[in-house]
């Protein structure tokens, strides 16, 4: 077919009409919205978990995909009176940024019955959020490249691992946690930013990675041999035949801590509370443990043997090193600045 200007303009007009016709379709449905990370998290949550909740509430559901920074920017722009959706899942680092600004409903066992079965560390400050996804961060290492495995976080500074390390960027909460730990371990306290950064400078140069899944290819290719990593990534590598194992650091595991909160002023607040209760239910907590190696925060969950070999038990995660993210956020500007200028 000969493509003339007239054809082009006609096609353009048709496309405009179709597009305009399509726009209201977004507004016609009123699904219940919650948020989730992208990639495999989105796919699994959308296909395997949300249909159960949709059936439970008798209403269509949808996911808002993104990252903490963009969600926080949107909540701040919307204000506490006009939140874009009813329930939100955030890394506790982000929850802490707005939990004192009147956004969140206080959660109690009366409005979230499964809260009664949670491990104590899952009940966050002011009960404005409950941890529903706890991903243990351990030390992974290549068994073929490391003669003597590390025993704990402090071993990262051992000469035998020089040039073999991969670490998180300071923009990732794992990077912040490691810096706070280093400040406490090597310096005067968790707020001893100068000592923490100076200690990591001793390890340089090392690859700094934004997310766990970007450390994994480096370890698979043998470019790094030791790295802090969440257990889900270790299992994924083992399933692909990569010679990799892990140790639980003797000082204690760190954890990626994702909390669920409900916006006090959203019209769907009741459904938001129902959703948090659903996520914290033994059924969903077990599903997350089996599929994502996420540690259940509901004490009543019985881990099956194939999952029990991973450090996911309530006893293990209760012993994990935890941080006060109000304090961490207060020093994060100084920490980021010093890190970027030094390393």
């Amino acid at each position, binding site marked *: 077919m000969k493509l003339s200007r007239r054809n082009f303009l006609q096609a353009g007009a048709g496309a405009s009409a179709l597009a305009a016709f399509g726009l209201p379709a*977004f507004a016609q449905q009123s699904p219940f919205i919650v948020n989730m990370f992208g990639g495999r998290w989105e796919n699994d949550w959308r296909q395997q978990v949300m249909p159960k909740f949709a059936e439970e509430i008798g209403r269509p559901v949808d996911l808002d995909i993104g990252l903490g920074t963009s969600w926080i920017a949107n909540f701040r722009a919307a204000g506490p009176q006009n939140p*874009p959706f009813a329930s939100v899942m955030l890394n506790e680092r982000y929850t802490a940024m707005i939990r004192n600004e009147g956004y969140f409903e206080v959660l109690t066992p009366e409005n979230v019955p499964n809260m009664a079965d949670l491990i104590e560390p899952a009940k966050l400050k002011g009960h404005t959020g409950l941890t529903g996804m706890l991903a243990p961060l351990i030390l992974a290492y290549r068994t073929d490249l490391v003669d003597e495995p590390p025993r704990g976080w402090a071993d990262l500074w051992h000469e035998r691992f020089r040039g073999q390390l991969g670490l998180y960027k300071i923009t990732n909460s794992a990077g912040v946690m490691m810096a706070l730990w280093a400040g406490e371990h090597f310096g005067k306290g968790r707020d001893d930013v100068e000592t923490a950064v100076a200690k990591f400078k001793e390890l340089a140069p090392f690859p700094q990675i934004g997310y766990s899944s*970007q450390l994994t290819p480096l370890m698979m290719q043998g470019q790094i041999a030791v790295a802090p990593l969440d257990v889900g990534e270790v299992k994924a590598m083992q399933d692909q035949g990569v010679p990799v194992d892990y140790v639980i650091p003797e000082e204690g595991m760190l954890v990626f801590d994702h909390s669920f909160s409900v916006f006090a002023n959203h019209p769907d607040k009741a459904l938001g509370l129902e959703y948090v209760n659903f996520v914290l239910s033994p059924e969903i907590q077990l599903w997350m443990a089996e599929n994502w190696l996420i540690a259940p925060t509901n004490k009543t969950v019985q881990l099956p043997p194939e999952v029990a070999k991973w450090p996911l038990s309530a006893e293990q995660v209760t012993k994990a090193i935890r941080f006060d993210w109000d304090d961490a956020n207060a020093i994060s500007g100084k920490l980021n600045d010093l890190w970027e200028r030094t390393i």
Partner: protein
Amino acid sequence: MSAASATFGGQRTIGLGFSLLIIALYVFLLMPLLTIVGASFTSGMMIEFPPQGFSLKWYHEFLSRKDLVDGLLMSLRVAAITAIVTTTIAMMAALAGQAMAGRMAGWFQLGMTLPLLVPELLTAVGLLFFLYKIGLGKTVLGLQFGHILMAFPYAYVSITAALRQVPSSLEEASSSMGASSWQTFRLVILPLVMPGVAMGAIFAFINSFDLYTISLLLKPIGGNTLPLALFDFLTYEFKPTAAAAATLSILLSLCGVVLVQRLVGLQRAF
């Protein structure tokens, strides 16, 4: 004779040097594209170049991933509307700009290209707060506004450049022969500036298709554009599916170039 031959030899050396420079420039520009296209056909499990073997499985995985395909469809829809709306508004703005004279025209030009001068992140944050104020926060329409704003200068600059090539005597001749302003525009001006309009539309489309920061903050609830979906994908799964998606994006851009060629010819457009 020997001086002439030395001069000829010198010119050959310079010519060879420039040829090597051009080749190096092309390699520099094309290597990232070739790498990502090559990596998309790997049969291995990671993005790597050269690829391990040959496989189309990552294209299959891309097409079977609802999050990525939905992202592609949203990007195509938003970019298509952006191209059409932006080109229309930019044409009107370019005509208005041409009718102005003196310092006013200079300020007008500056105003029309402001979105290029302000950092995208600041524009995005400003728009985010503005859109929530007018009730369009996290809606498709809000995202569409953002894309049109960011793509506008590209279309405006392209169309303005094309308009400047049209001699004002043609417009005067058309008027003197009794044509109305609309007839003059439709039958005289528009056909002559069509290459610039087509290029502006293509630039607007490609710019919109690639926008990340604006989309990150303004994207609607339940929707993702392809760059966002790809970033989310790479954040949690570092697989060659992303390379397959990038290759398809490159193909789409090439389709745009072919479209310009078929409509107005590349040489007329540049």
